[in-house]
C-alpha cells in the first residue's frame, strides 16, 4: 500500500468498495468491450445485491460504463446521462456460486455489435479483480497495462506472442493462460511494463488462431 492508498483516493462516496470499486468495474467493462456500450445487463451478487442501492453501486457501475472515473461528480446522475448517451441497462440480483461478496457480472453490447461478459469483484479500498471473461475463469486487476488475447489452444502460440512483443521492446511482467473448461480456446492475460503500440496490436490480431485482442492501457 503506498502513501496515497492511505490518504486517498479522491472519490465520490459513500464506499470505496461499493462505489469507487464499482465505478472501476464499469470502466474495465467498457475497456474490455473496446467500444461505446449501448446495452448492459448486469447481475449483482452478495453484498452488491443487498446494500448496492444504498451505496449507489448501480449508478456507479453505469458511470464506469460511460467512462467516468471514481471521482466524477456526475456519478449519482449516471442513469440520466446513460439515457442521453443511448445506453440502456437492466439490473438483476443473483446469487452466484463461489463468488466474492462484492461481485458484478456485466453482459455488454457495443454500438457495432461487439459483445463481452465480464465478471469482476471489488476487493476493498477501491481495487478490483476480473474473475471471468466470457465464462472463462481469469484473474487480473488491470492495474498495469494488460493485454488479453483470445486464442485457439494450439502449440507454439505463446512463444509467437512473446516474440512479437519482444520485437516491439515490450517487457512482459506477468503472463497467465486460462483455458475454457469445455476446451477449444483459451485466454492469455499478460501484464506489460510498457503500453503496447497500435501496430503491435494489429499484428497480434492477424496472428493465426487469434480471435480477439484487447489492450487495457492504464495510462489513459
Amino acid at each position, binding site marked *: 500500500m503506498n*502513501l496515497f492508498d492511505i*490518504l486517498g483516493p479522491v472519490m465520490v462516496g459513500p464506499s470505496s468498495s461499493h462505489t469507487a470499486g464499482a465505478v472501476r468495474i464499469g470502466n474495465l467493462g467498457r475497456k474490455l468491450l473496446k467500444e461505446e456500450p449501448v446495452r448492459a445487463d448486469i447481475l449483482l451478487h452478495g453484498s452488491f445485491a443487498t446494500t448496492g442501492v444504498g451505496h449507489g453501486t448501480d449508478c456507479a457501475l453505469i458511470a464506469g460504463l460511460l467512462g467516468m472515473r471514481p471521482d466524477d461528480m456526475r456519478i449519482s446522475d449516471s442513469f440520466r446521462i446513460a439515457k442521453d448517451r443511448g445506453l440502456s*441497462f437492466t439490473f438483476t440480483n443473483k446469487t452466484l456460486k463461489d463468488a466474492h461478496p462484492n461481485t458484478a457480472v456485466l453482459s455488454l453490447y457495443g454500438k457495432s455489435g461487439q459483445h463481452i461478459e465480464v465478471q469482476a469483484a471489488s476487493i476493498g479500498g477501491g481495487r478490483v479483480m476480473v474473475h471471468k471473461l466470457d465464462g472463462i475463469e481469469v484473474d487480473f486487476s488491470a492495474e498495469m497495462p494488460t493485454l488479453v488475447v483470445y486464442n485457439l489452444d494450439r502449440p507454439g502460440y505463446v512463444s509467437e506472442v512473446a516474440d512479437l512483443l519482444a520485437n516491439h521492446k515490450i517487457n512482459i511482467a506477468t503472463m497467465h493462460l486460462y483455458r475454457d473448461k469445455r476446451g477449444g480456446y483459451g485466454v492469455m492475460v499478460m501484464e506489460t511494463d510498457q503500453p503496447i503500440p497500435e501496430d503491435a496490436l494489429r499484428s497480434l490480431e492477424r496472428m493465426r488462431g487469434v480471435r480477439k485482442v484487447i489492450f487495457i492501457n492504464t495510462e489513459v
Partner: protein
Amino acid sequence: MAFDSLQTIVEACGREGKGFWQIVMEDDMREREVSWQDSRNEMYHIWDAMLLAAATYDAGLTSKSGLVGGDGAKMEAYQKQQGEDSFCGEYMCGVIAGALQMGESNACMKRIVAAPTAGACGVLPAVLVPYFHKRGCSLDQILEALYVAAGIGQVIALRSSISGAAGGCQAEIGSASAMAAGALVHLKQGSPEQIIHAAAMALKNLLGLVCDPVAGLVEVPCVKRNVVGAVNAMASADMALAGITSRIPPDQVIDAMKEIGDNMGAAFRETALGGLANTQTAHDIARKLNGDGSGPGQA
C-alpha cells in the same frame, strides 16, 4: 519499503536529523520512484480535494436511504448562535460541524478523500481545515502534517488494518483519529516522539470499537463517529503536547488493535449483523429499504 513501525520512523528522525514528515515523504519518493516535487504535488492534490469537499457541503442533500443529511448545518448554526457558551466552545463546535458535514457529503455521493477510508473521511479535514482557516498556518505546514498522518496510517495498515471489514471501526475511525492526532502535534511543532504518542493515545481511546453500520450503509453510526474521531484527536494531541505519554509503546498499541480485530466476531466487522445494525429499528430500516421498490432499477 514502507515502515512497519512508528518507532523506526522516530529513530530515523533522530539519526538523520529530519522531521517525521520528511522521513515519510522520502520513503514515498523511494517507493514510487518520484521526485519530491511530484510527491508534494500529489499531496497538494489531496489537500485541495479536502478543502473543496469542505467548502461545497450541501445542507439540502439527504442520502439515498434518507437516513443522513443536514446535521452538519444544524451544528454550524448552533456554533454560531452559542459561540463560547457551548460546552465544547466555538472552535470545537466548528470541528464537530466539519466532521458531520464531510461524513454527510460522503453518504450523499459527493466527492471526498478517503482518509484512510471513505467512512472515516471526515476526521482529518475536520481538524485540519479550521486550523488552516482560523489559526493561519501555511500550506507547507498543512502538507507536512498530511505526510505525518499518512505515515502513521501506513504503519497501522501494515501492522494491523485500516478496514472495518477486517478490524472493526477501531481500524477506520480509530486509525483516522490516530493519524489526525499526529498531524495536529506536528502543526504545533511537537517532536517525533510526541507525534507517535498522540497517535497511540488516540488509538487506545477507540480500541474495541466495532463496525456495525445500519442496513450495511456507510451512514449510521459512521457520520457521527467521525466527530468522536476528530474530538479525540484534538484531546490526544493536546495531551501529548502537554508532555503526557502513552504508557504502552505506540507500536504495541497498534498490535493490540490487531489482536482485538482478529478476535472480533464477524457480526461486528461490517456485515451489518450485530450491534447497532442488529437493533429493532435497524431491522425496520433495512426492511423498508429493501422492500419499498427502491431495489435495483431499470432503464
